[in-house]
């Protein structure tokens, strides 16, 4: 089992390509890896609950841990009560600590 942290900096409303990255996270998790999807910068715009929001709960069911950068959320006025199911706010230490344990880190 390997550890992965996938860092998504774009939102799916801006770029169709973000879907590839979410699916890669799910695919790696289904292959029994430890996978964290970390939303940062405009990537957190996907974390605001809404009708068009991606289903992060489904990613969670696939085994992906979904985190959203607390600074990026605050910068965009997205409070904890407005987060989609399946997303938790986190600091970037979640990325750094995983790098420190040898996780593969992929930035999109």
């Amino acid at each position, binding site marked *: 089992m390997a550890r992965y942290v996938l*860092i998504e900096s774009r939102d799916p409303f801006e770029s169709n390509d973000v879907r590839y990255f979410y699916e890669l996270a799910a695919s790696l998790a289904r292959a029994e890896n430890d996978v964290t999807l970390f939303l940062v*910068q405009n990537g957190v715009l996907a974390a605001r609950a809404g009708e068009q929001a991606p289903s992060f709960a489904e990613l969670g069911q696939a085994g992906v841990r979904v985190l959203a950068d607390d600074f990026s959320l605050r910068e965009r006025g997205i409070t904890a009560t407005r987060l989609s199911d399946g997303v938790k706010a986190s600091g*970037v230490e979640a990325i*750094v600590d995983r790098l*420190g344990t040898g996780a*593969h880190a992929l930035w999109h």
Partner: protein
Amino acid sequence: MADSDTPATITFVLNDPPYENARSTTAFRLIDTAIRRGFNVNVFAYEGAVALPFARQAPHANAVHGRDVASEDHPNTKDWIAALLAEAAERQVKLDWVNCGLCVDERGVAEAIPGTRRGSPADLAKFSEASRSTLVIPTR
């Protein structure tokens, strides 16, 4: 978190020039967090990122907001990097910032702040081998 007796090392590869994208600031946040959590940090600055520590950056006033240079208090990216270098020294971990030399030459930004150094892809190869992990922050 790193063991304080034998700090582990993390490498970051940066590609973006200053003032064009949020990625530079996020990179600084990651480097800062890694230093504060006791990791040794390598930075390989590639392509436009070699301009991040360019010594000739200068702050400016902000007439739109009615602020002079002093009150605008605008850190250039070189100032952020100098602060990160100082913080690493204070915490007794290493921050080794290497600018890819050919990228420096073609952009004419050889004057970099003290504490950074000129290097080559050979440095990145060594960094990667010596690190627990390497995060590439790509440009677009």
